[in-house]
């Protein structure tokens, strides 16, 4: 794997579900393995201790018995006999002041003060001429006459095992985690690779290339099943969109053809009439009415197309600031003529993925509306700004505004407020803006500019596809 690949997928891998699952799994495994080994160790050690304690107890009772029967000399005899003839136990017999009388321990161990209880202590012993410190476990009793007897067994081996255990356990857990991580990374890389191809295909489809499909592999695994399902779904969506497109096209064709004939006929009749014929005006009015009909029809068609997503063909990165400047420039003289100040508030370059023509038309509709409803001497502000969630394009005027209760309603098709019934317009202007917004994944909200209306188009931040697995 090349270095650049590594850099690409290493940060990505920590964000994959597969890696997280493996990580949790490895962690749980490490904890349970440690617990199991720990418990086994603890249990074994306890059993060994119990065994030791049993032997020590037995010896102690034998020796106490001996003392009772044969006295101090008999006990000394027996103790000496035991340690000198290959016994593996440790003994010490001391008087009331702690002075050693006999035994293979050189002195009374300082760790053992209490009697009738097991204790572990270190003691020194010569092994091949060297004095070494070793560990023992034993029990002391006080005999009649205040003599004290300690019987113990060497547990140095067990002590070594325990030390070995406590030093190796962290290492093995560490190794386990390390192997787990590596395994997890490898596994997630595989999963990532498959997911990435699905992701890339989806991104391309979102970008407008609807002919793309998720590639299948020879593995016939769950990912292939997912890919097949996705592809089937995409086929279906494509068919639906194509169907919608065909419906829109045939409705357009079937209505435009007779409208075209109607308009042609009116124009031809007008051409045939004398220039000063009284019917000229009538026909002018009829043509104007036809044009209004065509305008409404075109707007409806465009809304249908935008709504269905069929119009998304020409999506490119567009500079919203340029769009705002151009549309504002188009409307500036009209605003000036109505004595309304049309201001574009300064903004940085902000771009979105979109259709320039449709966004321009939406903005033109908003500004057109604002100019229509702003009284003489009023002000319209067009602003563009970044928000945490994306980019806001807003048109605020100082007109009468729309009452809060009516705002949702005016976005519906053909709805015109009572107060504007008599001004020209199709009543589709805002619906078109809303449809264009929807096509771009944006949101149209109507708010209060105090006074006046503030229409805001909130575009989502441009999607950045994750750069992994390239």
């Amino acid at each position, binding site marked *: 794997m090349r270095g650049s690949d590594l850099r690409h997928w290493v940060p990505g891998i920590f964000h994959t579900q597969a890696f997280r699952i493996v990580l949790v799994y490895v962690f749980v495994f490490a904890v349970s393995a440690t617990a199991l080994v720990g418990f086994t160790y603890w249990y074994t050690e306890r059993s060994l201790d119990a065994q030791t304690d049993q032997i020590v107890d037995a010896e102690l009772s034998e020796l106490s018995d001996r003392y009772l029967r044969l006295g101090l000399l008999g006990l000394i005899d027996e103790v000496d006999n035991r340690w000198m003839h290959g016994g593996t136990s440790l003994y010490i017999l001391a008087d009331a002041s702690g002075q050693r009388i006999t035994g293979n321990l050189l002195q009374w161990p300082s760790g053992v003060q209490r009697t009738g209880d097991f204790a572990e202590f270190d003691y020194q012993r010569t092994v091949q001429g060297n004095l070494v410190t070793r560990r023992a476990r034993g029990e002391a009793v006080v005999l009649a006459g205040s003599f004290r007897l300690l019987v113990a067994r060497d547990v140095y081996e067990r002590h070594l095992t325990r030390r070995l255990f406590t030093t190796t356990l962290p290492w093995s857990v560490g190794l386990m985690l390390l192997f787990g991580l590596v395994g997890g990374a490898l596994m997630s890389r595989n999963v990532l690779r498959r997911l990435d191809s699905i992701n890339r295909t989806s991104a391309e489809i979102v970008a407008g290339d609807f002919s793309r499909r998720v590639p299948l592999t020879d593995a016939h695994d769950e990912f292939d099943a997912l890919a097949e399902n996705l592809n089937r779904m995409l086929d279906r969506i494509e068919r639906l969109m194509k169907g919608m497109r065909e419906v829109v*096209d045939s409705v*357009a064709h079937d209505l435009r053809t007779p409208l075209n*004939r109607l308009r*042609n006929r009116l124009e031809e009749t007008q*051409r045939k009439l004398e220039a000063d014929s009284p019917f000229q005006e009538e026909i002018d009015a009829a043509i104007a009415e036809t044009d209004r009909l065509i305008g409404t029809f*075109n707007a409806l068609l465009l809304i249908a197309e935008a709504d269905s997503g069929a119009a998304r063909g*020409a999506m490119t990165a567009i500079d919203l600031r340029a769009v705002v400047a151009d549309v504002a420039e188009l409307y500036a003289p009209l605003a000036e003529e109505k004595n309304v100040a049309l201001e574009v508030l300064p903004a940085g370059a902000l771009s979105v993925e979109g259709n320039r*023509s449709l966004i321009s038309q939406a903005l033109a509709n908003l500004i057109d509306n604002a100019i*229509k409803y702003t009284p003489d001497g009023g002000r319209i502000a067009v602003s563009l700004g970044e928000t945490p969630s994306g980019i806001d394009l807003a048109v605020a005027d100082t007109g009468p505004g729309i009452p809060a209760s009516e705002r949702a309603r005016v976005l519906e098709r053909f709805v015109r407020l009572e107060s504007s019934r008599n001004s020209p317009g199709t009543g589709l202007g805002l619906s078109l803006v809303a449809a264009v917004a929807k096509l771009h994944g944006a949101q149209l909200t109507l708010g209060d500019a105090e006074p006046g209306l503030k229409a805001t188009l909130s575009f989502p931040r441009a999607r950045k596809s994750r750069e992994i697995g390239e």
Partner: protein
Amino acid sequence: MRILVVEDDLEAQRYLVNGLKEAGHVVDDAADGDTGLTLALSRPYDVAIIDRMLPRMDGLNVVAEMREHGNTMPVLFLSALSEVDDRVKGLKAGGDDYLTKPYAFVELLARIDALMRRRSPSSVKTKLSVGDLELDLLTRTATRAGRAIDLQPREFRLLEYLMRHAGQVVTRTMLLESVWEYHFDPQTNVIDVHVSRLRAKIDKGFEAPLLHTIRGAGYMIRAR
């Protein structure tokens, strides 16, 4: 001028042919794509008006075939389809202009006039003049009778477009498409306001107006 009309809606075809003939053009017609293509390839026309949806061979294919055969005659597409992506497709296939049905006949006439004019490009001009109005395309300045006229960049482009089509009717839609590059219909007549401002700059204080409003059609710049 010789014009080829390829349109399958016979009634629409008749109006179109009659209207063009009345306007003084010589017109041939075809009702399907095959015949249209044969005519286009066998006879010299100044411009072709081709419907987008035709029987036998789609309008887009007719134009694509024409271009493949090296035929460069200007083509205006007529379409009854919805508009958003269709214009782009039409222009990509080799069309020169695109008009959605229903259209105003004056709009069509103005557009084919513009197309035919485009066909004979006079040598690259650096100066345009109409009467005593002069436009210097290099220094981006305008003068009338030697007096400098102060123009905004957009006003300059507007005037340039009008002067390039001096003596021809230029419709509002044509101005919106060429000067502003918008292909939608602004609900209010914003273009009129722009033109009247331009008129105030170039005609005010002069005896003979150059920028004329053509009733029911659009505008024309010409020296009387």
